């Protein structure tokens, strides 16, 4: 068994496995990372009476659909975690595969949206709104990409039959990260697309 398959590592006194505690600490730092960008967006928008806005270049239905895709991927991720816990290999593989596909779909739609902006000559330097848009959605997309690659890696290990209740603890940790990425989007989406 490699360290990649590592089961939960007991911690010194906290009662929480060290690797899980580490992931939560990492997520806490990520919360502050994204809060800085979101707070900057809110402050800039509130202090600018002539806020330019998307001016019809953002599709609410497409953004809503993409958010739905991410919500679906959160459910399949947690189902993959439940599957590895009860050693249901078929459900584990299916749900990890769905999570990867849904995550890639989200990125595909985001790439399509970006291409539409570029076709209209819109970029990060167009105005303050688009600077915020590309910064927030770009950093989020990078996080989604990291999550997709991580989930793909776990899918490959599941296909090899190397994940079981004892060795599949990483699926839960990957899930924590994936759900966090979902939560960030639950705030970025309404702020950029709806309000």
């Amino acid at each position, binding site marked *: 068994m490699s360290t990649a398959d590592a089961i939960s590592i007991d911690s010194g006194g906290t009662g929480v496995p060290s690797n899980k505690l580490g992931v939560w600490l990492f997520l806490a730092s990520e919360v502050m990372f994204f809060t800085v960008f979101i707070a900057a967006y809110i402050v800039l928008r509130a202090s600018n009476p002539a806020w330019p806005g998307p001016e019809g270049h953002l599709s609410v239905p497409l953004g809503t659909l993409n958010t739905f895709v991410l919500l679906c991927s959160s*459910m399949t991720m947690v189902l993959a975690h439940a599957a590895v*816990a009860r050693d249901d290999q078929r459900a584990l593989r299916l749900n990890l595969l769905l999570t990867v596909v849904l995550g890639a779909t989200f990125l595909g739609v985001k790439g399509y949206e970006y291409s539409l902006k570029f076709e209209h000559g819109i970029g990060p330097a167009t105005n303050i709104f688009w600077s915020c848009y590309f910064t927030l959605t770009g950093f989020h997309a990078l996080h989604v990409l990291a999550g997709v690659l991580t989930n793909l890696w776990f899918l490959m290990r599941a296909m090899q039959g190397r994940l079981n209740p004892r060795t599949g603890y990483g699926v839960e940790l990957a899930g924590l990260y994936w759900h966090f990425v979902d939560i960030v989007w639950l705030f970025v989406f*309404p702020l950029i697309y709806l309000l």
Partner: protein
Amino acid sequence: MSAHVSTRQYVQIWVALAVLLFLGAAMSQFPLAKPTIVVGVLTLSTIKAALVVLYYMHLKFDHRWLAIVAAFPLVIIALAVGIVLSASLVRF
């Protein structure tokens, strides 16, 4: 920790998340006052985030240390927002 929640409950939470998502998107198009829409949509987002954290990330059933770790950045953010708002209140 997944033993606390059944597959059926996971799906029920997903349905609730989807309903809240489409409700928020619809609310943003209603002819309501802007502050009402802002508060309504962000409240729905907060409820969705809470559902994900509590049930999909299992914080509701997990060790209290993790709840403390999860709450810590929120305390920092609250302090920062408080400082920013108080600074704007005393500005002439």
